């Protein structure tokens, strides 16, 4: 088992990377420390208390919760968290969070919202994988992370499903307009 907490020279320092939505529901979560976050129940309970502590303050910030240093940053309807060991230099964690946010932001073309993030789920998973490997910080340069993970940025929005959905919503809005014109 990797040593997250006691050994000061251990490289394992990221206990988890979590993205929640504006209601505190999990969008993506990747936990590395199985001592602290062994079961889904523990994870969800932690996310709940984490969200209740951080949702009021919308800017970028830091909080210490249950012996875990949590850095977070929010945008529109998403909350990005990096959960680190308390012995880790907070600036390392800060760099990790910044990298995560920036990389996601580049991939989503600055449109950091839940809908866009869910559509690019595979790329987001790759980004998280490139930033952290089993708890070791792999890379904190957002540009490098994007290069290594965002391989098909063009295709994201034009998969089968999204085209048909696009069409459907178009028909629906046309329908509505038609109704309104009748009512007038």
């Amino acid at each position, binding site marked *: 088992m990797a040593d997250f907490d*006691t050994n*000061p*020279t251990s*490289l394992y320092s990221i206990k988890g990377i979590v993205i929640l*939505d504006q209601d505190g*529901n*999990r*969008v*993506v*979560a990747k936990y590395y420390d199985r001592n602290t976050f062994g*079961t*889904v129940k523990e*994870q969800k309970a932690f996310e709940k*208390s984490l969200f209740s*502590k951080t949702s009021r*303050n919308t*800017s*970028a910030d*830091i*909080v*210490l*919760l*249950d*012996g875990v240093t949590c*850095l977070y940053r929010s945008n529109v309807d998403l909350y990005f968290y990096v959960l680190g060991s*308390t*012995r880790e*230099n*907070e*600036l*390392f*964690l*800060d*760099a990790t969070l910044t990298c995560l946010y920036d990389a996601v932001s580049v991939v989503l073309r600055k449109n950091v919202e*839940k*809908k866009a993030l*869910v559509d690019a*789920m*595979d790329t987001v*998973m*790759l980004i998280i*994988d490139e930033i952290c*490997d*089993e708890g*070791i*910080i*792999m*890379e*904190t*340069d957002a540009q*490098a992370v994007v290069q*290594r*993970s965002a*391989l*098909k940025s063009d295709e994201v929005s034009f*998969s*089968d499903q999204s085209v*048909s*959905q696009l069409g*459907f919503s178009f028909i629906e809005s046309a329908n509505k307009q038609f109704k309104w014109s009748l009512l007038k």
Partner: protein
Amino acid sequence: MSGAPKTKGAQSSRMKTNKKDEESGGNVYAHLDKTSVLQECRAFNETPINIKKCTHSLTKLIYIIQQGEPIGRTEATEAFFGVTKLWQSKDVNLRRMIYLAVKELAEVSDDVIIVTSSLTKDMTGREDLYRAAAIRALCKITDTGMLQTIERYMKQAIVDRNSAISSSAIASSIHLMRKSSEVVRRWANEVQEAVSSDNHMVQYHSLALLYQIRANDRLAVNKLVQKFSKNALRSPYAVCYLIRIATRCLVDDDQPDSSVFTFIESCLRHKSEMVVYEAARAIVSLPQTTPSEIQPAITALQMCCTSPKAAVRFAAVRTLNKVAMAHPNAVMSCNVDLEKFITDSNRSIATLAITTLLKTGAESSVERLMQQISGFVNEISDEFKIVVVDAIRSLCSRYPRKHTVMMPFLAKMLRNDGSYDYKKAIVETIIAIIEENPDAKVAGLAHLCEFIEDCEHDNLSTRVLHLLGREAPKTPNPSSYIRFIYNRVILESTKVRAAAVTALAKFGAQCSDLRPSIQVLLKRCLLDSDDEVRDRATFYLKMLTEASESLIHNFILDGLQVSPSGLELKILDYLRSQTYSSPFDLRTVPVTQQALSQPEKRVPQLVEEEEKPKAPKVEPYAAQLAAIPQFAALGPVFKSSARIALTESIAEYTVHMIKHTFANAMVLQFECKNTMNDQLLLDVSVELEDPDGEWETKDTIIIEKLPYGEVHSAYSLLEFPDSGAIAGSLGAILKFKVMDVDPTSGEPDSDDTYDQTYVLEEVDVNVSDSVQSVAKTAFASAWEALGDDATREETFQLSTVENIPDAVKKVSEILGLVPCERSDRVPEGKTQHTVYLSGVFRGGYDVLSKATVAIDPSDNSIAMNIIIKSNEPLVSDLVISAVV
């Protein structure tokens, strides 16, 4: 259009998904069903591969595993084999998702090693984007045996020019260090080469791996630090890591190299904020630093306090908070900066700042700070509330007069909602204040009484009831507390009711005027529904109505002062012997210093105090001694002394002694360690010689073989001399035979041995070895209860000590008695002080002592009058002999 019905069907299903989308807030992944996802994964087996569909299904599969969906071994294996089919596709994105899937499935699926060759091919291929990820996936599924086959590729990858590949290989090696460290160690040269890489992360990872490879070799680590501290590393991460290694060196080394410290200090002027903070944090965490060494680090932290980044401010304040414990004066210079943080929008920072100020601030600012805290205490997490409570506790012991401000504040916090740990911290703080400060007692007890009126934690209720039983009878108006306690008997759970009955009995025992009313209350408890409560009530009622004062005292107030494990052992022995003609003798049970009911003291701690392994508390040697048949006849151990070194710590052979006292004998345990790697010691024993000829060694146990680096124990059995002496000093010589061995293999060079001796320090046997310190909760009544026939008194001058606290400490050490009722705390500026000491002499005789120490202001000479009482004249004589 091929047909309208089809479109309609598609539409309705789309509507369904849309509806589902709305429920889950637009997240299609939120409510994935495992079965349907696995169903979708069947598409992997189709040819040709539909890339988009497969990528999407694969993403879902990875997603459900990552989010913790339990997945069976067969299901996982089936999915895994599906994934392997996807290797046919050349799509880059799909391939990357395959690697992710392999890593996620590695632990839940069987036969993952079948993809080794595919991964090896990708790892050595031309596509850089594949290579890095393939290395990590491969290392995840490989085992030690397989690792050797890819060793060559790993070595190449470590020094690859592409930073992603190099980093991946090194990070994977760090994971592998845990299971196949032997193989990874062989890559040290490549790793060392990677340290000189231009890439920041590669440098950081490789330095860390290099250190882990060499961590066991202190010399090599020192060299590593020396080398890299001179030629500057480019990566701030690597520099931070080097600081961590350097700190380790400084902490572990007995004679640390001053250049290492100079290096850390020089990092305070590094251009990266990250490194500056790391260095400052390292310096303040070092043990034994002088104020002048710490000052530059504090200044650096002060600079960090002004950073616009919340993380930096938080880090700086958290570190300052920690330093404030050890060096409050050094942090004082930051007070102005910390004051600014009180209103910081980040509550964590504000709390840390205030608690730091509470530790360093002046008495006058306490009220203002408390005001500030109470403004937002409800908004912060319980963890931080505990930090605040601990700060208040340390403040109270520094400024005892401020309890009038603190007590109401704590009481208010106690009334608010909170977790058990939080409530516990508050209750403990109030208890600590009551114990330290007699002026706060009445107010504190009143708050606690109010607390137990409405307390959902049984543990805390019983704690408070115990305290009430002990402290409240000594207050001016004890009867006012009885109502609170009796209410508990009516309303609470069994555990609390039982504790309340005991507390009532203690009132009855100590306040004779209340005794009749207590008896009435206890009579009512006889009808309780639980038998434990009834038993207690019956017992106490009987004691209070019929027993003598001394019995009441022994059985109600003091409780059992025996070691639980010892008691269990003795009772088992008694039951096994099957002879019940004589009653069980409690005096044969070894006593302990702490009464059974005494709760463990919680040390106030900061948020993330490192967990220290708890020292084994309960007779660590009892089991060792019990295993030796020669000592079985001696009975239970009465007392074991601390470890005493009989040699210098750097000697060739080190010996530590532990004295075990039995009822009529002593066993000296010698823990011997051989630090010579070219010698094997045989037949090791310690020979004792008493110049006065009183003590004689009755039995010895030798160590037959003592190889290099191991610790074994030799024993000597001494009986207490017939002359009645219980003190003495004996010469000790370590005797052994030496056999020369080969330092590397440990094999003997030849069978030749030669005798050798080694003179040890003298072994002292003292009176205190025969006395176990056992505190009395009510000293005065215990003193009265002992008769006057075995009282000895002595007055003498003390020349070796300079002040009263030292004298008090010395006398309790010499006698082996423990101060009661906190009488060892000498108020400052007093010229006379009386300390109450108590203990138990071997064989179970109580020994009490009153020692009055006075200092003559004219020439600072110290005089002491000591009175010793016990229930056996001979014991008093022996104990007093220790001081004259």
